[in-house]
């Protein structure tokens, strides 16, 4: 998500307001980032154990471990830089959107030949990112197409391999954050960040791209157009997690926004009220998989939710961005 479209132009190395960035950086690392990835690593460990205890797709224990771990992933899924990007770990955890149906193809491919790669974590880690992670596991647990493909033994071993691979990636990200946290908090020669401003800008980008992804992709894909709504494109709709992902990501982004704007109370207040509106709208929707986007009334409510996230994005880019020395540049719009 870090790399998604953003119109950010990093201008002057010294921003207009010269506060002590160090305190904000340390706070975000200690309270927002490290506990988030630690929680993910713990719940994915529980997921791997649950899969090895009972690999039945309908097992309550396995399904609830899946939901708990997926929750923890969504809550850090806006923090797409550094350890999450090493070896494509984040993509291997969450290959979505899948516009060309690569995930079912990859799974069917493994099952059809009973690929032995699933017997070795190293070998499985070399297979396509599309056939790994939470979205592959969701298909194995919830999609009827995979309930009877191939042999029961192979399906069981595949579910266990996917769960262990999720845990392996989450643990690797968590472990790497121990050293990366130091680099983010201490910019300079030995850090990927040359200044505290650059480190702050990385976190700001996480806020901007995270809210953009939730508005444009998590909500935008199922919305489609009025004439052609696309409810089947909703994220993790089979396990009815689509709306939940919006709510979880908004909650995490709100925490990040609050900490990023800690030294600008007016902006913090504006962001806080915008997040309140958006989270209220998400919580009052009774449409867990965005199935109702096909009806005019249901669509209207999901559009209102999307609009409230766009309002957050506008406040972040017009109010918060400039305090961090970030302006939308004329020529740096992504990809042109």
């Amino acid at each position: 998500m870090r790399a998604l479209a953003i119109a950010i132009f990093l201008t002057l190395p010294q921003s207009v307001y010269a506060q002590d960035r160090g305190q904000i950086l340390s706070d975000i690392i200690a309270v927002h980032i490290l506990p988030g990835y630690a929680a993910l690593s713990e719940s994915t460990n529980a997921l791997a154990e649950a899969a090895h205890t009972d690999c039945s797709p309908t097992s309550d224990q396995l399904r609830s471990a899946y939901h708990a771990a997926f929750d923890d992933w969504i809550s850090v899924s806006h923090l797409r830089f550094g350890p999450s990007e090493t070896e494509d770990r984040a993509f291997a955890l969450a290959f979505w959107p899948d516009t060309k149906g690569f995930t079912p193809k990859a799974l069917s491919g493994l099952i059809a030949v009973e690929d032995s790669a699933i017997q070795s974590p190293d070998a499985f880690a070399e297979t396509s990112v599309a056939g790994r992670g939470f979205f592959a596991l969701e298909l194995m647990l919830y999609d009827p197409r995979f309930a009877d493909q191939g042999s029961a033994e192979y399906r069981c071993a595949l579910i266990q391999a996917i769960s262990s691979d999720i845990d392996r990636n989450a643990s690797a990200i968590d472990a790497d954050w121990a050293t990366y946290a130091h680099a983010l908090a201490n910019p300079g020669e030995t850090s990927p960040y040359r200044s505290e401003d650059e480190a702050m800008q990385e976190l700001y980008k996480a806020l901007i791209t995270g809210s953009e992804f939730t508005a444009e992709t998590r909500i935008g894909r199922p919305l489609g157009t009025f004439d052609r709504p696309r409810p089947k494109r909703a994220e993790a709709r089979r396990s009815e997690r689509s709306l939940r992902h919006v709510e979880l990501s908004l909650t995490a982004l709100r925490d990040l926004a609050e900490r990023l704007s800690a030294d600008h109370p007016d902006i913090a207040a504006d962001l806080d009220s915008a997040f309140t509106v958006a989270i209220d709208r998400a919580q009052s929707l009774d449409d867990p998989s965005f199935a109702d986007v096909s009806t005019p009334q249901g669509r209207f409510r999901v559009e209102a939710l999307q609009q409230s996230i766009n309002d957050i994005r506008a406040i972040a880019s017009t109010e918060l961005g400039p305090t961090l020395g970030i302006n939308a540049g004329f020529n740096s719009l992504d990809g042109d």
Partner: protein
Amino acid sequence: MTSRRSFLAGLAAASLAPLRGWSAVGAPDYLAAALFPDGTFRLAGLDAGGDILFALPLPARGHAAAAHPYQAQAVAFARRPGTFAIIIDCATGTQTAVLEAPKGRHFYGHGVFSTDGTRLFTTENDFEAGQGVIGVWNTDDYTRIGEFASGGVGPHDMRLMPDGRTLVVANGGIETHPETGRTKLNLPVMQPRLTYLDQNGQVLEQVELPQDLHKNSIRHLAVRADGLVGFAMQWQGDTSQHPPLLGLHRPGEKPWLFSAPNAEQSTLQGYAGSIAFSGEGETVAITCPRGNALHRFRVADGQLDGVFRHEDVCGLGTAPNGFVFTTGAGVIGQLSKNKAQISARPDCQWDNHLIPIRTAA
């Protein structure tokens, strides 16, 4: 689909006065869009010295343009994901036609005319299929006469090779869909390609980068008179990596990638905006608007030959003795062997690209 009339007209124009149409509007070397001080977006004709020869109003901010080979006629594309482009008569400033993308397609903002001017080719997105398309238009009346696959996903810039027949396409590899804005839908599996096609859509050659660079989107192109192709890239991978952003390719060979030393390369934020060869063809340069720098390399050995710092530098073109560049801060500059000369015009914000009206090399 060339009509007899346009064929004869093209032949006559090509043989008698190849640039008569453009000379009537001051013989500009480039087209460039800009935001002017009165708040209007305009398409300007510039000469290599940086003088503005004309500046015609556009209905909205454009992306790039394409210049007819001999008539003073320009195509201005809307920004992505634009569904229309306008044809402007640069002598009168009037809009003479509108191209509308067919249902299920949008423009990527680049296009190129055939050598005889009878056809216009445009890079487009077949967004339901997530595949790139080249649209073909008859320039008599700007009707669409066909399309063919671009050979990849997300075709962006496109040029005509010096043989006058082969198209070279920068298939950037990134899938987008208008319903999800500029969200990139396929980063983990993206596969950019440099694709050579004939004008019927037959793929002549596909060039891919090594697998560890599959997130390096090939987006903008320059072609030297001898057919050497330069390509500028935009890195979509981990920001702690600083891969090359400039490559050269000669048909039939492997691509060759150029990079500045890491301390310099790491300031570019993985983003090159435009590419051009110098007039004498011995150097090649990229502009890096996020790193506020222009990097120039020697073609012969790939050595970094100069770093020039300008805020929001993006437009870049070939000039007789070097390069011409523009910036979003209003600068027009000339770069010759050892010096950069600036003519500041703080009243215009120049857009991404300088479109050559003829190949200076």
